[in-house]
């Protein structure tokens, strides 16, 4: 009996941390193919730093996936937040400490719009966020369709400073992970995402938690817009374009289930690093840029397949006879 329990614990541990193993194997593969590029000591830090904005977007998408929903508009929320932030940052009268609050507040407001349409009115999340994807995208270009380079240092500090950038992302990740795993709200959030009907019968309001997910997602997407701006020390209308698919891939690779309620936020670290390592590896292998898009698409499909297989392996190993 003890051996059976230990076997089950080992299987569970390996499955829950499979993305770490995948990260190590992928890095190892590229390191064997291109050791001179992949074995540089600063590679991990550089990779982590350059992908903090993507990490924040993956966190945004992970929140909505955990709530049992889906958000196509997080990239455009990041872009709109960055546009508003850059416009406000150019105004001299605004205090600098207030500037960094603009993008996450704009993001949260966009999330509130999604929350109202999905949770308040009851419209389909996929269709709503497809619509708001287009709305936010258009609004971004209306507000600011030019590149902005003269931004205050305080505004770009978050993305420009490597230590601050990585440290801030880790604080966000650890905070959300702690709330999800250790607090009663996190438990209820996961229950509402996993089985809304059962959660309701237990006195939990699933729509409230889903609304909080959309607002929180918007908040982190806004932060991603700020990070994108800081990383390039400028605002560009193309900021965060097409990033929703990479963010989605990062969340699914991290083991956030597509059916809601399952997954650990902490696994976004290896999930996003895995995307970064693949991107870096394909770059050092000089893979054609168009072929890279194909390969990333294949990667997203593979991530979905792995998520499905993982559950089947877990079921087979853990179902009682």
């Amino acid at each position, binding site marked *: *009996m003890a051996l059976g*329990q230990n076997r089950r614990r080992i299987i569970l541990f390996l499955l829950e941390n499979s993305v770490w193993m995948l990260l190590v194997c992928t890095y190892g593969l590229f390191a064997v193919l291109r050791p001179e590029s992949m074995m540089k000591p600063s590679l991990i830090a550089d990779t982590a730093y350059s992908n903090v904005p993507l990490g924040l977007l993956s966190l945004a998408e992970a929140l909505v996936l955990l709530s049992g929903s889906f958000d196509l508009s997080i990239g455009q929320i990041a872009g709109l937040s960055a546009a508003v932030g850059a416009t406000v940052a150019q105004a001299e009268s605004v205090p600098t400490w207030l500037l960094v609050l603009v993008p996450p507040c704009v993001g949260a407001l966009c999330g509130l719009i999604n929350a109202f349409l999905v949770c308040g009115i009851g419209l389909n999340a996929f269709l709503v966020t497809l619509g708001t994807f287009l709305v936010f995208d258009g609004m971004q270009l209306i507000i600011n369709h030019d590149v902005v380079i003269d931004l205050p240092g305080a505004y770009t500090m978050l993305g420009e400073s490597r230590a601050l950038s990585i440290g801030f992302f880790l604080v966000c990740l650890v905070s959300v992970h*702690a709330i999800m795993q*250790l*607090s*009663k*709200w996190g*438990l*209820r959030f*996961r*229950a509402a995402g*996993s*089985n809304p*009907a*059962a*959660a*309701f*019968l*237990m*006195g*939990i*309001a699933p729509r409230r938690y889903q609304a909080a997910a959309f607002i929180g997602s918007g908040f982190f997407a806004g932060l991603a817009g700020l990070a994108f701006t800081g990383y390039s020390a400028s605002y560009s209308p193309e900021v965060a374009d097409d990033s929703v698919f990479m963010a989605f891939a990062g969340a699914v690779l991290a083991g956030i289930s597509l059916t809601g*309620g*399952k997954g650990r936020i902490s696994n976004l670290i290896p999930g996003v690093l895995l995307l970064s390592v693949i991107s870096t590896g394909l770059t050092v292998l000089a893979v054609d840029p168009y072929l890279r898009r194909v390969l990333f698409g294949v990667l997203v499909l593979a991530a979905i397949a792995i998520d499905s297989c993982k559950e089947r392996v877990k*079921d087979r190993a*853990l*179902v*009682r006879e």
Partner: protein
Amino acid sequence: MTTPFLEIRDLSVQFGAVTALTNVNLVIRECETIGLIGSNGAGKTTLTKCVVGALPTEPGSVLIDGHPVTFSGPGAARSAGIECVFQTQALVDDLSVVQNIFLGRELCNSLGFMNARAMRQEARKLFAQLGIPEELLDRELRYCSGGERQIVALSKAFYFKARLLFLDEPLTALSVQKKHAVLELLQKFKDDHRSTIVMISHDLSETYALCDRFVVMNRGSIVRDVQKSEISFAELEQFMRGI
């Protein structure tokens, strides 16, 4: 005459063109064990959902200890000591057994962070009291059998000492052995807590032994309300065949 614990007055429920309940009136007293029986579609589950706050009760009213109440949801009903173990078991597959027991009523500090150790200890004590294997505690609910899930659902009500417990088809799809275990647990619950139990079933043979009063429903109405001492099993079975 003491005030009844629960009183339902003139309760009617409509789902579009379908009438689920018609002017239902029911009085439930403390420490009763009631079999709420009837064929599928008689309105038993709908009545239960109204009482536990999962459906609105207007038109009609629900009184607790003589005072009219309107539950905003199942959480409010639970706060009033009314629990329900639904047929679908209202459990979350992706959480552990301990988490399912305490979901919605977690043991927390003032900041809202759960005391997982305390919750596990309380669950372990509860399982020891009920004779349930401790190994069940940390298992994800999806890996529990039907009987184990039913026991987890019942142990929730047991721990939180429900004043009134509704059990919606608690023995459906269970093996003979598991049925026996669940019935033993119910008897223990009844003896230890002096709670009121309403057992909903379409199968009279499952409920007859445990219950001391029978409320028969048909097509959204109560058609018979009788004490066990006033009717035999055969007579009640005959009555149900005739409706």
